[in-house]
């Protein structure tokens, strides 16, 4: 008997407004195989997963689960056709025990089931044992470690014995030991004859498990093959590492505040509940220096920036010009000149471009504010033309420029840019890149840049830190980065 493909996707397309999130996607997974779907943040891989599961409705295209066309169905019907999903974030019922949480997934979709079927209980116990939750069956989720919460999600997803299993970032937030245990579990599920889709950021994390890898970028498929083939693929390398990288680093000794750098982050640790987001991170930034923190999505960049901005509780210390920022409110830190451009942009979308800028400069005297706006319109000429337009109607790239411009209205000493290139087309990147070069050459501003796009980050960096799984794993000049880190980064 020829193995029938359990999941087959063809021509899948999804638009959000003017943005094409997924374009003509095609993939197929046979029974007993694992496909890795990888792509940088914003590439559309999560959307693909949601389209398959019916959480989002595809605009066009076909999704076949076990041979049945399910595109456009509501997700509960797709689930009943034999598809299951393991969400990245666990949201169990907190007032119920682990066992009850698993039992929930076993219940039929009927309003007439008013008594608990004893067989359900036995079945739930079998599933719990399989994923390794048998010791904590009667505990409540709130008392469990992070890895066990992920196990509850897996248990729920496999409760109905789905033939197609979608797993979103299987190893996010897990320790190496837990990752190994999880990998074994995923292999077992594959050996049952399921078709498994693993969605993750890079090849490295899933290479050991997958039969094939499909790489996405800006909504499109850019490569498919074995893990090795995809890692060697030119397009993939260009997306992750960029092409030729020009660097223009200034040596660290060139900065005059060598003894006490402008910003010092000292042994910083941050926890989100039980998941550790930052582990003993130490970095420093000199006045007027451009420092890049490079790392994949989920490595902890945003957490680091939020801690510096005073938005998160942390252990360790953050010092500005030698004095601690602990106890200073987020608003005071921003007014003091440490200004963050958040990844989500957070523009006031119903206000015009000009109003957004005026708001950023509202603490400045009127004349100074006008002068600053003029300078910014010089820096980002497109914003001058868009002055009267609502921020929500701008393209992604224009919104990013406006975010940076609004932050600059506050005349920051240290500008923190969190993933400014997220989801942007190359031509826009160039414009933002030029603006950064100009800032660097003509102003005394200090910049801390968080990026997963190395091509964008390196030319603007005097120094680079690599953040991986909550830790700083590498530090050095941008020129050395390509040589030493290039292959390990994929």
């Amino acid at each position, binding site marked *: 008997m020829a193995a029938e493909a359990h999941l087959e996707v063809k021509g899948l397309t999804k638009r959000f407004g003017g943005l094409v999130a997924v374009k003509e996607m095609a993939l197929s997974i046979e029974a007993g195989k694992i496909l890795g779907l990888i792509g940088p943040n914003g590439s559309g891989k999560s959307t693909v997963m949601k389209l398959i599961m019916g959480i989002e409705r595809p605009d066009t295209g076909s999704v076949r689960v076990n041979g049945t066309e399910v595109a456009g169905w509501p997700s*509960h019907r797709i689930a009943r056709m034999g598809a299951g999903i393991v969400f990245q974030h666990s949201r169990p*019922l907190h007032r119920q025990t682990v066992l009850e949480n698993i*039992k929930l997934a076993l*219940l039929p*979709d009927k*309003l007439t*089931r008013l008594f608990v079927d004893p067989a359900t209980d036995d079945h739930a116990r079998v599933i719990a044992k399989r994923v390794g939750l048998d010791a904590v069956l009667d505990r409540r989720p709130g008392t469990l470690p992070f890895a066990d919460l992920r196990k509850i999600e897996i248990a729920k997803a496999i409760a109905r014995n789905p033939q197609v299993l979608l797993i979103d970032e299987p190893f996010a937030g897990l320790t190496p030991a837990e990752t190994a245990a999880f990998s074994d579990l995923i292999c077992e599920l594959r050996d049952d004859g399921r078709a498994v889709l693993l969605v993750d950021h890079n090849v490295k994390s899933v290479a050991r498990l997958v039969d094939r890898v499909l790489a996405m970028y800006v909504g499109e498929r850019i490569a498919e093959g074995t893990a090795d083939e995809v890692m060697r693929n030119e397009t993939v390398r260009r997306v992750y590492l960029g092409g030729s990288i020009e660097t223009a680093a200034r040596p660290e000794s060139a900065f005059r505040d060598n003894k006490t750098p402008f910003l010092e982050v000292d042994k910083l640790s941050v926890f989100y509940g039980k998941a550790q987001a930052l582990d003993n991170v130490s970095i420093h930034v000199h006045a007027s220096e451009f420092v890049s923190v490079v790392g994949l999505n989920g490595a902890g960049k945003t957490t680091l920036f939020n801690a510096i901005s005073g938005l998160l509780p942390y252990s360790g210390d953050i010092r500005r010009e030698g004095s601690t920022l602990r106890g200073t409110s987020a608003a005071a830190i921003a007014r003091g000149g440490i200004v963050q451009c958040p990844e989500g942009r957070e523009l006031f979308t119903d206000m015009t471009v000009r109003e957004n800028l005026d708001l950023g400069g509202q603490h400045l005297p009127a004349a100074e504010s006008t002068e600053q706006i003029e300078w910014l319109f010089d820096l980002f000429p497109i914003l001058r033309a868009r002055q009267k337009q609502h921020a929500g109607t701008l393209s992604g790239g224009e919104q990013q420029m406006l975010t940076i411009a609004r932050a600059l209205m506050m005349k920051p000493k240290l500008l923190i840019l969190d993933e400014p290139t997220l989801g942007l087309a190359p031509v826009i990147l160039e414009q933002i890149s030029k603006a950064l070069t100009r800032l660097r050459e003509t102003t005394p501003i200090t910049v801390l840049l968080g990026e997963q796009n190395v091509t964008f980050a390196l030319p603007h960096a005097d120094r680079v830190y690599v953040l991986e799984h909550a830790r700083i794993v590498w530090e050095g000049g941008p020129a050395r980065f390509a040589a030493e880190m290039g292959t390990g980064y994929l």
Partner: protein
Amino acid sequence: MQSLSTTRILLIALCVVIAAAFLPLRVTGYILGLLTIAYYTGVFAMSWDLLFGFAGEVNFGPTFLIGTGAYTAGILDTLYQPPIWLCVAAGTLAAVAGGVVLALPALRVRGPYFGLTTLVAVLMLENFIIVDAHLTGGENGLAIPDVISISDTVNYEIALWFMAVSGAILFWLARSPVGLILQASGQDAVQAGALGFNVTKHKLAAFIISAFFSGLAGALLVFYVGSASASSVVDITVGVQIIIAAVIGGRRTILGAVLGAIFLVAMSEALRPIGDLSNFVVFAMALLVVLFFPSGFFGLLTRSKEPN
């Protein structure tokens, strides 16, 4: 600390109800009257908690369902004087029908818009009652020719056992497999859908059950009071009182709502001497409970901690 099991809670509740059944031997008719009102309010609040605490939908219009039941029963009695049970059944049916008509469009919208839709429904009903005065009695209210009984004790026992039975059904429903699916749908509709549950179907069912008990209680209430008026069964402030009762009693507990209702009625009686200030004091206390004991009275009693 482990919270109490379902059977133990029901057992304790049964003991309390039996004890309450002997109250007419000890207290005055006036107090029985207050408790009768409190018990009906308790059913309103429990029905509301099924929607909010379990299905996760904030219904700002519990009085739309109650009012529909109350007025349908009352108008039917005024016009044709059929047997009272028929009026009550018709009122209940009307509330369920009204609930479906309201829920179908309301469940299509998300978040605050669901609440807003239900709020508008109350305003529309209230407006209809005032405009269509020849049928509803308008602002003066509707005087109802029949009552179930003129005995305080009989009325009290009817309300008590009606509340006990409704409470048992709602409580058991909330803890049944269907209640579990409802909770999952309320907390994370996307995940519930991905687990194969038709979220809309379950929420609609919750709305119908809530409407059934609200309408039934509303219809019974008018035959106890002997009249129906917009200010007593439909007005937004009545709805707010019901919501407060459910919240301070303990959300997601069903039975707590009864405690909240009795507390509210008792407080407004105890504070009667201070006049208009009494509402202020009651609301302030409700605010304190919400801020400092989010699991409410029932949560304090059963010592189950609400994880956030």
